[in-house]
């Protein structure tokens, strides 16, 4: 389980890191916590000859809440997300989701930036970020640009990030919505068989805003526009919820693997979406 040899870099600025990955093209990869990349390197399923460790770049860590906008540095770990009380007040769905990712040791190392940038359909943060309508900041040789999480994912491991860009931070609006991240998994530490993030706001008896996104139910996360349309403006009756669940399951496109056949995964999708909607309504 020893990976192929590589040259190790630990730059202390984003500019230097971008320069190294621009110089070496697809021979270079950045590493954040490494808990997705290193196992792939050990299996020799990822070949690279330059590893660019981002741990020395101080500006990539940290959580700030400013005027209702939450900004999280890409190198912020799952453990730090869970521990941050200000974040828990501004976006409690993040703590709920992060506690369901992997195990304690992995959460000390695994970062939000790695989780969202990797493009692994099994990762929880991409769906969560689509639910929160987050924006990713990418820095490349020609400067900085932003991409919506809902437009970032193209296929499994393929994203809108160019090879010479680094995802540096994530931002989204703080929300007082009801929330839930519901994940069905075979055992602790596993990727989701099906998971859903839901946000719901109520105004009087009706739903004034909603967001629903799915994890590991297609080769990208899925933002469920149709399901959201079933809830917004409705009175959130049993029928409204069932219509939204059906629309979300309809938007899913799971494939058969060791977590089960397609039918089972669609069934699990229905269960997690319904549970998440109901819990979000209770908290709204």
């Amino acid at each position, binding site marked *: 389980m020893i990976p192929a040899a590589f040259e190790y870099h630990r730059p202390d600025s984003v500019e230097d890191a971008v320069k190294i990955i621009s110089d070496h093209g697809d021979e270079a990869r950045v590493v954040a916590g*490494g808990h997705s990349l290193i196992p792939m390197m050990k299996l020799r399923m990822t070949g690279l000859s330059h590893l660019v*460790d981002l741990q020395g770049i101080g500006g990539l860590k940290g959580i700030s809440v400013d005027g209702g906008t939450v900004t999280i540095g890409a190198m912020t770990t799952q453990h730090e997300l869970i521990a941050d009380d200000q974040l828990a007040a501004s976006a409690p769905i993040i703590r709920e989701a992060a506690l369901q990712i992997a195990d304690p040791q992995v959460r000390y190392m695994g970062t939000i930036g790695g989780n969202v940038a990797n493009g692994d359909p099994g990762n929880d943060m991409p769906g969560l970020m689509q639910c929160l309508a987050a924006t990713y900041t990418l820095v490349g040789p020609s400067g900085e640009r932003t991409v919506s999480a809902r437009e970032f994912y193209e296929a499994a491991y393929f994203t809108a990030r160019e090879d010479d860009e680094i995802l540096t931070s994530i931002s989204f609006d703080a929300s007082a919505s009801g929330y839930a991240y519901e994940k069905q998994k075979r055992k*602790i530490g596993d990727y989701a068989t099906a998971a859903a993030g839901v946000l719901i706001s109520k105004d009087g008896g009706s739903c004034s805003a909603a967001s629903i996104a799915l994890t590991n139910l297609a080769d990208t996360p899925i933002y469920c526009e149709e399901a959201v349309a079933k809830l917004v403006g409705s009175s959130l009756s049993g029928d409204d919820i069932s219509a939204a669940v059906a629309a979300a399951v309809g938007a899913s496109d799971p494939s058969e693997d060791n977590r089960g056949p397609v039918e089972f995964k669609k069934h699990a999708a229905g269960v997690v979406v319904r549970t998440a909607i109901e819990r979000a309504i209770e908290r709204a």
Partner: protein
Amino acid sequence: MEKMHLKLTVNGEQVETLAEPRELLIHVLRERLDITGPHIGCETSHCGACTVDMDGKSVKSCTVFAAQANGADITTIEGLGNPDGLHVLQEMFKEHHGLQCGFCTPGMITRAYRLLQENPDPTEEEVRFGMAGNLCRCTGYQNIVKSILAAAAEMNAAKEAAQ
């Protein structure tokens, strides 16, 4: 590939060694520094037998490159206690039969150490959740949990007595 000059603090001592960047921290500890307390179990980030404390975090040292650990402060089971002076967690694992074959124990105790640093008075459920990254193939979980809860109680009693 050229070797890197690594400087680490391991169990309070400054150590230096040469290693290829691709070497995993567990291999550097065991094979270059002769610190064989942390074990190689699954080598796939699942079992936690290789858990060490790195800069105040429990990490699986099979999933950290030596190069990433350069400059880090590392504590292994050897740094927690020794046969002449067991750590209270070691005492309680002994007392409550928290080990059978013992293979997972260094990782269990090193992880439990950090858990109790962060949460000195955990519930049973918090212990189980906090130990979820460590597997015991003898499946001796009941007594592992019991040992950790007993260690927490001992440590808290000692703290109170000192006040």
